[in-house]
C-alpha cells in the first residue's frame, strides 16, 4: 500500500466527463480507498486529503484499450508488461486488454496467471488478459479450455494475429463462449486473398510493387462471422476494422439486432495507404492502411455509433525487425502513447465528435463490452481509475521519449494536442504532472 492508496484525493476544478452516467460539466471527484467516493461540485477537502487542481482539464474515467500486444511472456525484447503498462499510463490508459499471441500462448490458466501476477507486481495499469480461441493459437483444431480461462481471469477470447480459418471452429467458439459469457474477438483475414501481401491493393500496391491485400480479405470473413453469430449466438466483436465494406456489414448486422460490436484504430482514422509509398515500415500494419474513402467512412462510423470502440492495436517490434525489407518486416505499429492525442487532435478539435463521445469510445464502451464491473465510469463506488487530460498543450511525437520498447510509430515528428497530466489506477497515482511515477 503506497501513500496515495490510503490517503484521500480530491480532484478539483476540472471538467468531468462520464458518458456512462451522462455527466459532462464542471465537477470535483473524491477518491477514497481505491474507489470513487463522491462526485459533485464544490467539494471541500478534509484533514489530510490531497487536493489536485484540475482547472482547465478534462477529468474522465481512465481509458481502456481493448487491443494491446504486451509481448510478455516470450518477446520481452519487443515489450514487457512493465514497459507496456507504463506506455499505457503515459497515454492516459488505466486498463489494457492483452492479446493472447505471446510465447507461450495464452491458451491455458498458467499463462493467464503469470500475466496477471506480473501485472500486479510490475504494472502501471490494469491488465485484462485475452485467452486464445484455439489451442496454440493455431486458428484451427481444438478449442482452448474456455471455462478454465474464464475462471483464471480472461475477459475475451481471440486468436488475434491469425484468423480462425475454419467456419466450424468459429461456430463452436461462438456457441461455447456464450455458455461462459465471454466475447469472441475476431481477427478477420482471408489468407487466400491476403497471402504474401503487405499493403492495400490498388494504387499503393502498384506504385510500390508490393503484393496487395484487398479489403475483401477482411470483409469476407467478417460476413462469415456475422452469419455464424446469427446462427449460433455469442458476443462477437470485430477487431481493427479498416475498410468501408466491413463497416457496412457491421452496420447491417446491428440493424438486424445481432450482438455484434466493432473497433477501429487511430491509424485507420488518420492515415491512408499513400503513407507507405516510401517503404516506411513504421506504417506497415495488418490490416493495411486503406484509401481516403475508407478513412472517411470510418470517421463517419465513429461519429454515428457504428464503431463502438477505438483501440490502438499496440504492436511493438524491435528497430532491427522493422529495418527489414518492407515485405518481410513485421506488421504492427505502437499506439498507446499517441492514441488519445490523435483522437483529440483529429476528431475532437475538428468537431467530428465530442470529448464525451471520445471517452465513450475509449473507456465506457470497452468496459461495457468486456463486462468490466466498476470501470469505464466515475460513478460513486466505481474503481478509482481516473485520467486528467489537459487539451491545451501541443507537442511533437518523439519515439525516444516513448516508455514502450517499441518505437515503430508512423506519427514521429507530428505535432499533436493534449497532455495526460495525472493518472490514477485503482487509486494509485501512476502519472503526476505528466511524469510517470516510477517504482
Amino acid at each position, binding site marked *: 500500500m503506497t501513500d496515495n492508496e490510503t490517503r484521500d484525493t480530491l480532484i478539483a476544478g476540472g471538467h468531468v466527463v462520464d458518458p456512462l452516467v451522462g455527466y459532462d460539466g464542471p465537477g470535483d471527484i473524491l477518491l477514497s480507498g481505491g474507489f470513487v467516493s463522491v462526485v459533485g461540485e464544490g467539494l471541500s477537502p478534509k484533514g489530510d486529503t490531497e487536493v489536485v487542481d484540475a482547472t482547465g482539464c478534462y477529468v474522465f474515467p481512465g481509458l481502456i484499450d481493448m487491443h494491446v500486444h504486451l509481448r510478455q511472456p516470450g518477446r520481452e525484447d519487443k515489450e514487457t508488461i512493465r514497459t507496456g503498462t507504463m506506455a499505457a499510463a503515459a497515454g492516459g490508459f488505466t486498463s489494457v486488454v492483452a492479446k493472447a499471441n505471446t510465447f507461450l500462448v495464452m491458451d491455458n490458466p498458467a499463462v493467464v496467471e503469470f500475466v496477471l501476477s506480473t501485472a500486479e507486481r510490475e504494472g502501471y495499469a490494469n491488465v485484462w488478459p485475452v485467452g486464445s480461441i484455439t489451442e496454440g493459437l493455431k486458428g484451427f483444431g481444438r478449442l482452448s479450455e474456455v471455462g478454465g480461462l474464464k475462471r483464471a481471469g480472461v475477459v475475451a477470447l481471440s486468436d488475434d494475429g491469425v484468423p480462425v480459418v475454419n467456419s466450424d471452429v468459429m461456430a463452436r467458439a461462438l456457441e461455447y463462449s456464450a455458455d461462459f459469457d465471454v466475447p469472441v474477438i475476431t481477427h478477420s483475414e482471408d489468407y487466400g486473398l491476403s497471402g504474401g501481401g503487405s499493403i492495400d*491493393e*490498388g*494504387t*499503393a*500496391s*502498384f*506504385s*510500390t*510493387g*508490393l503484393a*496487395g491485400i*484487398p479489403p475483401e480479405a477482411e470483409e469476407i470473413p467478417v460476413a462469415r462471422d456475422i452469419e455464424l453469430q446469427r446462427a449460433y449466438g455469442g458476443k462477437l466483436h470485430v477487431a481493427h476494422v479498416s475498410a468501408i465494406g466491413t463497416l457496412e456489414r457491421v452496420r447491417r448486422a446491428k440493424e438486424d439486432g445481432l450482438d455484434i460490436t466493432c473497433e477501429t484504430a487511430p491509424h485507420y482514422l488518420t492515415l491512408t495507404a499513400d503513407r507507405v509509398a*516510401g*517503404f516506411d*515500415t513504421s506504417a506497415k500494419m495488418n490490416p493495411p492502411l486503406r484509401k481516403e474513402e475508407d478513412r472517411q467512412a470510418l470517421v463517419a462510423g465513429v461519429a454515428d455509433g457504428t464503431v463502438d470502440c477505438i483501440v490502438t492495436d499496440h504492436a511493438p517490434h524491435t528497430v*532491427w525487425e522493422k*529495418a*527489414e*525489407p*518492407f*515485405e*518481410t518486416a513485421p506488421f504492427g505499429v505502437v499506439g498507446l502513447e499517441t492514441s488519445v492525442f490523435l483522437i483529440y487532435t483529429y476528431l475532437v478539435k475538428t468537431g467530428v465528435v465530442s470529448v464525451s463521445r471520445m471517452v465513450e469510445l475509449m473507456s465506457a464502451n470497452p468496459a461495457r463490452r468486456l463486462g468490466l464491473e466498476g470501470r469505464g465510469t466515475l460513478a460513486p463506488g466505481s474503481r478509482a481509475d481516473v485520467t486528467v487530460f489537459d487539451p491545451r498543450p501541443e507537442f511533437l511525437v518523439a519515439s525516444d521519449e516513448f516508455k514502450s520498447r517499441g518505437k515503430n510509430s508512423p506519427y514521429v515528428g507530428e505535432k499533436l494536442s493534449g497532455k495526460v497530466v495525472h493518472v490514477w489506477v485503482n487509486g494509485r497515482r501512476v502519472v503526476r504532472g505528466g511524469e510517470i511515477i516510477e517504482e
Partner: protein
Amino acid sequence: MALHSKDLLGIQELSTDEIQLILDTAANLRNIAERPIKKVPTLRGRTVANLFYEPSTRTRISFELAAKRLSADFINITAATSSAATGETLTDTAKAVQAMQVEFLVVRHSMAGAPHQLAREVEISVVNAGDGPHEHPTQALVDLFTILDVKGYIEGLKVAITGDHITSPAGRSSALALIKMGAEVTLVGPSPLIPPGAESIGVHVEHSMEEGIADADVILLSRVEINPDNELRIPSLREYARFFCLTETRLALAKPDCLVLHWGSMNRGVEIAPDVARVAEDYIAQQITDGIAVRMAVLYLLSGGDRS
C-alpha cells in the same frame, strides 16, 4: 545539369529532364564500346560493388562492364557467397561495404523497396538493379534508348506492353518511363496478369491482344512462364499463347514499321512466335550492347559528372 539524388532508385523518382540527361550521356558514351581499347579513365580510383541477392546474368555483367569501362574498381557480392547467407541483414552488409570506401552499391533484390530502404541507411550511391516486381530503372532506360535510336522520338508513340505484368521486373519501370516521356502506353494481357491499380499511372489496359496492339509503334514483350507467383493466375501456357502470342498475323495489326522488343529469355511459342522472335533477336542483342552505355551513363552522372 546533374542528377538531383545520390541514388538511382526508380523511374518514379526521375524527372523527364533527368531521363533525357541519362539518355544523352549514354549516347555520348556508346562509341567507347566501338574503340579497340574500350576504356576511359573517368571513374579511376572509385569502386563499384554489385550486391546481388537474386540470380541475374545480364544485368550483373552489364553493370560490371560499365564500371570497368569507366576504369572503376569492381567487386561482386552475391547473397549465396556472402555473410547474407548467414542471415546478416541487407543494411549491415551494405554498411560493411560502405566502410570499405566503396562509392557505388548496385543492388538487386527480390523484395520491392529493398534498395529504397537501404538508400536511407547509407551515404553512398545506391543503384537499383531490380527490386522484385517494383522497378528496374536501368532496363527501362535501355528501352527508351533503343526506341529513341530506332524511331528518333518517343512522344506520341503508341506502345503496347504484353506478357506477365505481375512478375516482370521491367514492366512497371518501362511503362512509367514511356508515360513520362509522352508515349501512349497500353498494358495488354489477361486480367489476372494485370496488377490492380495500374491505371493510376495513366496506362490503358486491354485484355484483347488484337485490340491492344492495333496501330502500335512499339511492342514490348516479357517472358511468360508458370511460376509460384502466378500459377493461380493463368490456367496454362497453351491457353495464354492461344490468345496472346505475338504471331505474324497479329503483328500485322500493328504499324508496318512496328518495333518489337523483348526483355530477354524468350519463351518461343508462348508470348512470341518463333518467326517473330527471329526479328526481335537483333534488337535483343542491340539492347544488351546499349545497356552497358546506359549503365555507364548512370554511374558517371551519379559520380557527380555532368554531360560534357
